[in-house]
């Protein structure tokens, strides 16, 4: 048998390239690879280089070097100054106070809040998917509220509720103290505990969606087989359910961990009054004074993020995914909670009302009272919503928010921004998902997969700063376009996750059937693939939308004016202490998001819970 050594029989390189690019999946992957490198790696490199650069102002004075020159000053100051603690030893050294201590605090908070989020979200997910608990619809709908609220508003709500004259600044009593006379201790109201709780509760919906999705996809027969073999409930969970769900559980843990690490507003709110500092608070203050050190902290966060990604890869790569999505729906028998079902359901509903509904009520209340703390009817007015000529207040706006052209304009821009980001990110997510799944296992696919997840791990603040710097080098990145660009890149991970999981559920034959009858690629996408997985894909659009509507730190440096979008306006108003306007705007944002989520859900079946790969 002659071997094929004849060179003329082998495919020439040119043909190989043409063949390679004739598959749409390859084209997509290459384009995304290049784009993502530019949009994520380049900013990353800029960030890292900034840590070695002298910045104008204090750094220039301290190093006595010119602006823009190379220096290791930032590193030395932040990481290696452990000897200036004097008599107190290293615990009073600059590096300890500015870096290592906040680092430990960040780790503690992040791990704790991730665990809280997973336990709370996971339990609710299990109850909703696997048991016959009552009020499933209500629980499912309301549970996503904490995620829609800007996280600092939850922190505000916590402090407004629990503060009392015995703790922290101790200047006034919150609702619990003034109405019920209950004075919570300091560790409960400020510091490690509330920060972890608030962040954990804020991300619990996230965990709920991810874990619920996994549970839904898991073959229920596996648990039934164990039941028939007389396995106790506890053993089923520990030996069957958990091990199979573990890779997904781990993914969730890592995702929440990355999110909580870069959270800024919550630790500032609940930590500063008792001098509890985390990396993000230090980063913010250092960004204002010693930029190089600020960027080092940002880099550290990114390193953590990368490590998380690597661990996640290693873990899920080691064992094949156990959640076989065959699409064959087996009848599952729900666990009968018997007598426990009513108490558990009621307890859950109460908790959810406290976490999800009560803050909304509190925002509404706070937006209609004139003098703080006075909740009597005489002190209430709808002026902040629909009043005119409010100059007597000497704050905020001359009109109530629903009538203020300034605020309505900001609402319009916020919506424009969120919709644009969601459309771009969502579409890119669909395309990326298509490419990644079609060429699964190849280098290109893995690379784009990881790159598309990467932006999520970059701290929003640093991300925004880098893009501001980019905007000076690339002149068309300004104004609204810059905001849309940075929002789309930042939330692409969400969209690509749901795109990938949607594509994974589709078997190849579906597309092949269309290929055989010569349907062109774009038509296959639009008429076949997209409609079948419509609700999964659309959920990939919803999540960026919601996230953009409530996002602040990403946009704060890039907005042309702070009146451009609602969230920067809200922050500004909060800072100025115009609480009523602030609360009204806050409520407005949440209500708008809820309405749109509801509408999209009714029209297309898409929803946030299908979004993150559920």
């Amino acid at each position: 048998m002659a071997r094929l050594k004849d060179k003329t029989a082998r495919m020439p390189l040119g043909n190989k390239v043409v063949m390679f690019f004739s598959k749409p999946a390859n084209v997509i992957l290459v384009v995304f690879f290049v784009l993502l490198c530019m949009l994520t790696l380049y900013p990353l490199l800029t960030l890292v280089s900034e840590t070695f650069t002298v910045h104008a102002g204090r750094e220039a004075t301290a190093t006595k070097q010119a602006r823009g020159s190379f220096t290791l000053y930032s590193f030395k100051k932040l990481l290696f100054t452990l000897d200036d603690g004097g008599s107190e030893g290293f615990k009073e050294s600059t590096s300890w106070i500015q870096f290592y201590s906040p680092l430990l605090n960040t780790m503690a908070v992040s791990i704790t809040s991730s665990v809280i989020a997973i336990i709370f979200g996971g339990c609710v997910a299990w109850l909703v998917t696997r048991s016959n608990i009552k009020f499933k619809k209500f629980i499912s709908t309301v549970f996503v509220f904490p995620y829609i609220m800007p996280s600092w508003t939850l922190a505000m709500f916590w402090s407004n509720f629990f503060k009392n004259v015995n703790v922290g600044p101790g200047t006034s009593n919150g609702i619990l103290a003034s109405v019920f006379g209950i004075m919570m201790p300091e560790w409960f109201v400020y510091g490690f505990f509330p920060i972890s709780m608030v962040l954990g509760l804020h991300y619990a919906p996230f965990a709920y969606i991810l874990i619920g999705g996994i549970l839904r996809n898991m073959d229920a027969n596996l648990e039934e087989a164990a039941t028939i073999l007389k396995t106790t409930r506890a053993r089923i969970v520990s030996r069957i359910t958990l091990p199979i769900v573990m890779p997904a559980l781990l993914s969730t843990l890592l995702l929440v961990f990355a999110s909580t690490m870069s959270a800024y507003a919550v630790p500032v709110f609940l930590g500063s009054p008792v001098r509890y500092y985390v990396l993000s608070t230090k980063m913010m203050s250092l960004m204002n004074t010693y930029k190089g050190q600020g960027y080092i902290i940002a880099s550290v966060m990114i390193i953590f993020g990368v490590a998380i990604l690597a661990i996640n890869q290693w873990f899920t790569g080691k064992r094949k995914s156990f959640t076989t999505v065959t699409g064959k729906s087996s009848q599952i028998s729900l666990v009968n909670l018997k007598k426990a079902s009513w108490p558990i359901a009621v307890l859950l509903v109460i908790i959810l009302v406290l976490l999800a509904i009560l803050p909304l009520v509190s925002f509404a209340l706070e937006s209609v009272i004139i003098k703080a703390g006075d909740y009597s009817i005489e002190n209430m007015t709808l002026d902040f919503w629909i009043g005119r000529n409010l100059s007597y207040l000497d704050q905020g706006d001359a009109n109530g928010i629903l009538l203020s052209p300034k605020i309505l304009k900001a609402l319009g821009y916020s919506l424009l921004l969120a919709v644009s980001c969601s459309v771009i990110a969502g579409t890119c997510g669909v395309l990326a998902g298509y490419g990644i799944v079609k060429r699964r296992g190849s280098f290109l696919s893995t690379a784009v997969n990881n790159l598309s997840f990467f932006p999520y791990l970059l701290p929003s603040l640093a991300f925004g700063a880098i893009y501001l710097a980019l905007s000076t080098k690339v002149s068309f990145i300004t104004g609204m376009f810059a905001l849309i660009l940075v929002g789309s890149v930042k939330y692409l991970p969400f969209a690509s996750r749901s795109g990938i999981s949607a594509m994974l559920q589709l078997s190849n034959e579906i597309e092949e059937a269309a290929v055989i009858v010569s349907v062109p690629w774009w038509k296959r996408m639009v008429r076949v693939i997209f409609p079948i997985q419509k609700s999964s894909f659309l959920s990939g659009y919803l999540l960026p939308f919601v996230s953009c509507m409530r996002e602040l730190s990403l946009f704060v440096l890039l907005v042309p004016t702070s009146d451009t979008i609602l969230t920067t306006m809200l922050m500004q108003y909060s800072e100025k202490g115009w609480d009523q306007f602030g609360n009204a705007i806050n409520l407005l944002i949440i209500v708008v998001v809820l309405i749109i989520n509801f509408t999209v859900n009714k029209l297309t079946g898409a929803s946030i819970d299908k979004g993150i790969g559920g």
Partner: protein
Amino acid sequence: MPQIVLRNITKRFTKFVAVDNLDLTINDGEFITLLGPSGCGKTTTLRMIAGLETPTEGEILIDSQVVFSATKGINVPPNKRDVGFLFQNYALWPHMTVYQNIAFGLENLKWSKSDIASRVAELLALLKIEQFSKRYPSELSGGQQQRVAIARTLAPKPKVLFLDEPLSNLDAKLRLEMRTELKRLHLDTKSTFVYVTHDQLEAMTMSTRVCLMKNGLLQQYDPPLTVYNRPINLFVADFVGNPTMNFISAKATGKGSSILLEAESFKASMTTSQAPELKDAEVVIGIRPEYVCISDEPTGKAHAVIYSNMPSGMETTIRLQLGKTMLTSVIFRGVDYPVDKKVGFSFIGSDILLFDKKSERMIASGSLQLI
């Protein structure tokens, strides 16, 4: 020794009735097949007996103990019913080895480590999968996975074994092989097998009794050969047997032991022992293909033309056309008949059936002569 009794079992999913007033008694040691088309309620019935599904009405007794009663509010959970269940997709735990999968149930029963080891070894040998003991399910073929699933189900020596279409995921050759294995296992373990399938051949070859269901209603519950030779209605007659039975509409008049039948393309006289009183009644004649005989010369006035001829080596399936009627005939041995040849035919044997057209029930059986 457990006998399973179902009384008035009904399962309703809001408006849809999956199982309708089912009465069933399964004796100890039987191999019962629940047979029927998709959606007829057989898997639901199986799951109800096992306890994975809760009936809306009725009673279930296992070994004279009430494990479910709608009126008395009793519902014994599946893990207390002492049954084994083999799932259609095997439901092997992907994160455990073959050994661990099989041993898992025994660990729950608190067997000693050595007892478990010997029992697992016994099963591995029985099912010929010894060399896979340390492998993971994803590393096994479909047939091997299925054997592991069977081993796992058999490990705790259940008295009753439920099997939900276990062979439907296997290729044809393997299916044949596994049928034999399962039948042998049934004898070796002396357990009661309750088997669900939509493949009538499986039901016929393996069961002691077949339970045919349609739209949630029990049609017939008899040994396979009874179901085959004396189907209780048109549905059963049509469902069982391959190729399917020939159905010919006719008008019947007669009484006593002889009935005159007038079909569109022929006339015949039926000799039967159970003839009811008939006067110009609308009937359907049911003739199994093996009872249609072909000859060069016609018997009686009827001729047929060969429409198609499909020899398989062991037998030949021939389709005959008489006027507007088509008849299927099966002849042992491969004979190549030329298409479009005119032939004679006759009906042999005494298992020709007569069904009432309106009620679809079988009213008589006997032999048929062409006139």
